[in-house]
């Protein structure tokens, strides 16, 4: 069992938790992920590492309440325990040879982008961050991004905060204005990452995307997380989750990602009713 040491609600649909898992905390790096089960018989879900404290032995996770499992997880409070927590899995984000980087995060993906930005900042790189949200209410981690970025641009779809528009607009402007990024790293919804890649490709700026496909074991056994990258089958759990954005087949990844959409919706409704009953 793994203790929830801290819980913070970041916005109505996004929650942050620090989980006591010293073995995972000792090894975790930005870009890696963990798999957890909330309860016995629970589903295994992958969540990207949003931070870690090697001394305290905790790993930070940030999750959006999208399905039955994240709803159960969100119902847990500080001091409660979750059944299983395993990691760190996948490969850490590569930082070699990068001096200037642009981090592009979207929605809850910003939670995963943050430790990557922090890592580059610690390494002394120039970090530009562009973070986008649907609206002001969904904005998360602005202060944290500010602290590790030389330049931060906040975008909202409806203009209720920061600049109105999509993240690719300021990214294109920056590239055109002569910002020579060694790398663009983007983490967020598949459709956003697809457009980020479409924006950087004409300029040939190397672009890394962090994929978060459906997974079960997360250790290279089930093959559920497979993606087509550069025409070859790759497994996000052992080959990724970071991939060269120019090579990822996003259309396929998007189609595969909603394979269980109906089940998810039912699970969410069922759990919703359960909680209603309890309250």
């Amino acid at each position: 069992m793994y203790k929830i040491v801290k819980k913070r609600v970041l916005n109505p649909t996004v929650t942050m938790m620090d989980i006591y898992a010293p073995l995972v905390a000792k090894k975790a790096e930005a870009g890696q992920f963990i798999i957890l089960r909330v309860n016995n018989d629970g589903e295994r879900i992958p969540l990207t590492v949003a931070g870690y404290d090697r001394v305290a032995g905790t790993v930070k996770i940030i999750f959006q309440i999208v399905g039955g499992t994240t709803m159960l997880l969100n119902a847990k409070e500080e001091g409660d325990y979750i059944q299983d927590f395993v990691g760190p899995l996948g490969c850490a984000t590569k930082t070699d040879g990068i001096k200037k980087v642009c981090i592009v995060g979207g929605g809850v993906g910003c939670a995963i982008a943050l430790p990557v930005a922090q890592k580059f900042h610690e390494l002394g790189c120039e970090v530009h961050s562009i973070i986008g949200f649907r609206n002001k209410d969904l904005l998360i981690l602005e202060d944290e991004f500010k602290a590790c970025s030389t330049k931060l641009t906040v975008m909202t779809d409806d203009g209720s905060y920061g600049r109105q528009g999509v993240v690719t607009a300021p990214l294109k402007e920056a590239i055109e204005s002569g910002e020579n990024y060694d790398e663009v790293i983007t983490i967020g919804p598949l459709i956003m990452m697809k457009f980020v890649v479409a924006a950087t490709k004409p300029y040939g700026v190397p672009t890394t995307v962090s994929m978060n496909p459906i997974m079960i074991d997360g250790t290279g056994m089930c093959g559920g997380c497979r993606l087509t990258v550069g025409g070859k089958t790759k497994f996000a759990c052992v080959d990724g989750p970071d991939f060269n954005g120019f090579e990822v087949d996003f259309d396929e990844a998007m189609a595969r990602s909603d394979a269980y959409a109906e089940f998810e919706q039912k699970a969410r409704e069922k759990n919703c009713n359960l909680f209603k009953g309890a309250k």
Partner: protein
Amino acid sequence: MAIQPKKHEMPVQPALVRARNFEEVALGYSEKVAVAEAQRCLNCKNKPCVEGCPVNVAIPDFISKVKTGDFEGAYQIISESSSLPAVCGRVCPQETQCESKCTVGIKFEPVGIGRLERFVADWHNAHFKGKLALPTPNGHKVAVVGSGPSGLTCAGDLAKKGYKVTVFEALHVAGGVLVYGIPEFRLPKEIVEKEVETLKKYGVDIETNVVIGKTLTVDELFEDGYEAVFIGSGAGLPRFMGIKGESLKGIYSANEFLTRANLMKAYRADAQTPILRAKNVAVVGGGNVAMDAARTALRLGAESVRIIYRRSMEELPARKEEVEHAEEEGVKFDILRNPVEIIGYNNPNDRRDRKNGCVTGIKVIKCELGEPDEKGRRKPVEVAGSEYVIDVDCVIMAIGTSPNPLIKNTTEGLEVNRHGGIIVEEDTGKTSKDGVYAGGDAVTGAATVILAMGAGKTAAKAIDTYLSKN
């Protein structure tokens, strides 16, 4: 007394009933039938059956005990050689091992050794109330990576010699392929749990949720005071064919499909893990895993399930009994067929149509058997122009696995072959790295439970020799 020419029948659930439930297919011998079957054994002098067993169970000795009704005595004899008798009695391919060598089998059907082993193990699990004779600790610590058949066997053998053994398991439950791969109806998970509990009683610690190669490395295990490490991490990434359409929705690797159904219990109505409840399923491949996947698909409510295999029924690598069970339950065999493409739904007028990207059919080409290959199996040769499409909404690829890269990538000095399998000395399981031993699918690629157990046993013996010297 004349020998009864045939094995005593194993009682089973009726085919059409069991094809719709997840309960165990075979029901096991009664005491009376077990004794009668044991009496078919001649207790012959040269005991060829023992050589046929990868872990060399003293077969005639345990059967002699069954003859006299001393079932616990029989269990004690088996457990000297096998840490998982209730498992082996169910999933071993006895027909190509012990039973294939049986003297009775020369003229008649061989003695039902597997059925008797299963009976004895189940009898012990149901009746044994005594205390296990625990060994004196010898002060040595050994780490075992993976809690599948090879790891559990290695751990059990070492623990019985007094070693302090810790087993590290990546998943949330111990058992490896016995829990995620082999279905409930062939090997109830309760039985695996019992076997694991027995090992714990011998002092084996099981640490779940630890991925060696990620959470901890092999070198760190040595730093933590383990004096030897056994790697039994199992087979790895599933193989795909590389044909068009293989990433459509509704296509599973057998590993994923079986893991959802077995480990995550997706077959239950209240399961939190989803699984596609398909109507028409095609399983590609002809091994035991393919049979397990096909029979699981039936039990999940499929109207039709077919095996697509490129050779003929004679070449099917699955156990004969599994093939027969599958056929009885209604699985169809499209033999001499090879998939060339998987076809998906596409509505060009509505990109948001949920059905877009879902499987609708599998295009196969007919094959004929040509010249034998290097293994002596006749090669399938495609018949030009014979392609046709079978309507399916789910395809399961059961065509093998490639070794997992996690341990290889993080363990300096551990040599692997060109397929990625760990290289070991056959007689000892010793790897290229000092103090590190390996066995099971991580070495051989996908094979059987009993071969993995044999490898775990060999390595345990070698580790004991290695640590006794120090």
